[in-house]
């Protein structure tokens, strides 16, 4: 085979690979967020540690050595889901036993509060979520029960309002916010680009979130009541420009790349040059 033929065959192979890749990327989009556990972990002792929600995770906290590593134990999600709250959990023998031996018991993996947030996204080893968990996230987000067990008595005493928030993409929210909005809804305090149900927000959604966040953070403002109401509803503030006799809407720059409200710049339409600061 000559040089020309070799180059042609090589180019054809490359084109074929490229086509297959594009096809996989196109067809495989719905499968993008699947949770995939390799078959290599088919044996009992090779199974990945499970987090509090029963998802495989590599983010296991160090076990205490003496006790059986609880995060290697399959959880019992059905039992967890049926426990309505901390009071009921405290009445069951299993919960009472666990309170005394937090890290050494199997079967306690998904504690009662976890079930309330089972629909929330988690930081699984194979999750596509790009969001980082908050620094002060609850122990249950670290994939083991050892942390939760240590705080269980305290949690049971404090009641359901202190339910540890469980999601990586939905960090800690107040009980008030929980009451107002479901765990899968964006609320003020979250990043502008937070993914909800594995869907990235559109630019319009990010703008809406920005205005809602700004409305909450404004204290000493030149915006009147009407504009503040608009911002709380996720709309941009407006003003009347007396020079042209028209209403203008405030604009945002840097929204596409922004994750936090302070990365977005607000501006009114119209370019005005400062002759002493022109660059």
């Amino acid at each position: 085979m000559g040089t020309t033929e070799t180059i042609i065959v090589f180019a054809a192979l490359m084109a074929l690979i490229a086509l297959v890749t594009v096809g996989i990327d196109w067809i495989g989009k719905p499968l993008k967020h699947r949770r995939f556990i390799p078959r290599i972990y088919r044996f009992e002792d090779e199974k990945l540690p499970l987090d509090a929600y029963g998802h495989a995770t590599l983010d296991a906290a160090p076990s205490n050595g003496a006790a059986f590593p609880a995060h290697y134990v399959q959880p019992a999600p059905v039992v967890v889901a049926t426990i309505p709250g901390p009071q009921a959990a405290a009445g069951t023998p299993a919960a009472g036993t666990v309170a005394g031996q937090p890290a050494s018991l199997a079967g306690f993996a998904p504690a009662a509060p976890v079930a309330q947030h089972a629909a929330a996204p988690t930081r699984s080893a194979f999750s596509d979520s790009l969001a980082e968990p908050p620094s002060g996230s609850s122990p249950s987000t670290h994939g083991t029960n050892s942390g939760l067990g240590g705080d269980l008595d305290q949690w049971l005493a404090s009641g359901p309002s202190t339910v540890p928030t469980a999601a990586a993409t939905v960090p800690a929210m107040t009980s008030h916010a929980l009451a107002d909005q479901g765990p899968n809804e964006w609320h003020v305090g979250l990043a502008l680009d937070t993914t909800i149900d594995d869907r990235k927000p559109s630019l319009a959604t990010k703008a809406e979130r920005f205005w809602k966040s700004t409305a909450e953070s404004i204290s000493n403002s030149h915006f009147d009541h009407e504009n503040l109401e608009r911002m709380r509803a996720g709309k941009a503030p407006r003003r009347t420009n007396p020079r042209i006799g028209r209403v203008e809407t405030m604009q945002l720059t840097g929204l596409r790349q922004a994750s936090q409200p302070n990365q977005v710049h607000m501006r009114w339409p119209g370019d005005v040059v400062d002759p002493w600061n022109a660059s």
Partner: protein
Amino acid sequence: MSNSLAQAFLSGNSRRTKWQGEVVHSVLGMAVKQGDIIEFTRVSASPTRAQALKIAVDKGDLRVNGIVVPVAAIWTHTSPERSILEVVGRKARSVDIWNSWSLDGVDSSWLASAGMMVKEQGDSYRLHCSDGIGEPTFDDLVVDIVVKRNG
């Protein structure tokens, strides 16, 4: 802020309204022509936040500090106390002047309590400007303006 100055402007002529017995402007218009010199002298300014006067020519430009721009901003934190602008453009007939302020890095005008009280004497004006924050005070920026006619 239910009856803000901005709402008073909306209820009537958006360039001028009456506020507590005084005429308040949102935009001050002046007749000019090419070659006229407009001299701004800052009398006082609030130290709380940056204040500015903005000037725009209807059909033409302004030569300020060596550059030619259609709309210029004279900010308290960048400009000298005395600024001189020259009207450029044969079709220029008028300039608009309005006040502005900077809050959290955002340059704003015509909001809430913003307005200017103007004392006029021939081609000399004294502008008492109120920014949009808090109640109208008309002491956030005080500027003297003198228009020197060309020819």
